[in-house]
């Protein structure tokens, strides 16, 4: 039994090794938001990363993410959603970032970007990045309420309590000064 298990493990390990060994160019791609919060009308930074884990350079690499961010709900502030790299050498990596600005609030499903490359001049490979998944785009007001400085609330608070608190103190002082304490003269 033990022997069987051991042999199975060996077989699995060797298979895995065979599977991951690549002679050709092989690109791993990721897509992730760098901003912690997506807020309507505020910049949102996305990063794409390409890693060529193969042994040969990948050629004519393109990242296409135009379908993920339709222009009616997102404004592209900086960067391109469709980029082209002539060559990524073996073991090399490329990162690409884009700044977008959501036009509306609510839930939004961030889908995968498509990456295409040629291992040599003929073999076209099409791959997808990971999907960041569903995220919430904050309403501007909600975001401000949660993260903006709170000084204004304290100022309003003190304005609310001031009339009775300091008003009563002033009225007391006024009355006190109207009736000054008279020090009785000592009669000797």
């Amino acid at each position, binding site marked *: 039994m033990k022997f069987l298990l051991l042999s199975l493990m060996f077989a699995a390990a060797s298979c895995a090794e065979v599977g991951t060994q690549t002679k050709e160019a092989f690109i791993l791609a990721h897509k992730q938001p760098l901003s912690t919060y997506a807020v309507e009308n505020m910049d949102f930074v996305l990063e794409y990363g390409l890693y060529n884990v193969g042994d040969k350079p990948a050629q004519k690499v393109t990242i296409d993410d135009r379908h993920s961010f339709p222009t009616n709900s997102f404004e592209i502030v900086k960067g391109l959603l469709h980029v082209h790299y002539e060559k990524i050498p073996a073991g090399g990596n490329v990162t690409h970032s884009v700044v977008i600005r959501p036009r509306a609030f609510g839930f939004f499903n961030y889908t995968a970007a498509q990456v295409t490359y040629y291992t040599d001049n003929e073999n076209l490979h099409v791959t997808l990045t990971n999907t960041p998944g569903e995220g919430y785009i904050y309403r501007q007001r909600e975001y401000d*309420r*949660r993260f903006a400085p*709170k000084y*204004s*609330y*304290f100022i*309003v*608070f003190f304005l*609310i*309590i001031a*009339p*009775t*608190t*300091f008003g*009563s*103190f002033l*009225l*007391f002082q006024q*009355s*006190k000064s*109207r*009736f*000054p*304490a*008279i020090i*009785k003269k000592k009669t000797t």
Partner: protein
Amino acid sequence: MGKLTKEEEMLLSSYSASSSTKGTLFFYVNALILSLAPLYLFYGVHQMEVADSLVVWTLSAAGTAYLLVMACKNQKKLLKHQIVMKRGPAVDREINTKFASDKKMTIKEKEERALFRKNEVADTESTYLSVFYTNTLFLTIMLISAFFLLANLAPVFNLLISTIGSAALVAFLSTAKN
């Protein structure tokens, strides 16, 4: 013993420790403001939503207002006597100068008027001073507990403990016998 006349009743009520209607109304209005103001802070700073926390807010406002009115009334009783003693001579002098030319008025009548005036002055002054004292004490304790001591507690518990708790502490301190 006959029935008390209206003037006698007024004289009696002015000497009693209970406050005038105007003063009591001031206490209630003040307590209402002071119990509602922290809710605004909790809404803004501790992010409590209006719809979710109406029950807790009502509870806190009612408890705080009740305790603060009690504290103000008790504090006023303590202060009124001291103020009568302090302002006495000045009020006497005021009455004397006011009725100096009035030859018809007897000394007894003047004394009565002075007493009445002393009470009036002490009543208003003690009302204001008790409100000021209670407010500052309550606000200091409330702000320290809500934003320093209990800052990391869940907002609901923070609210209840810091508002009702500090109001209760102020009310307790006001029950001192001098």
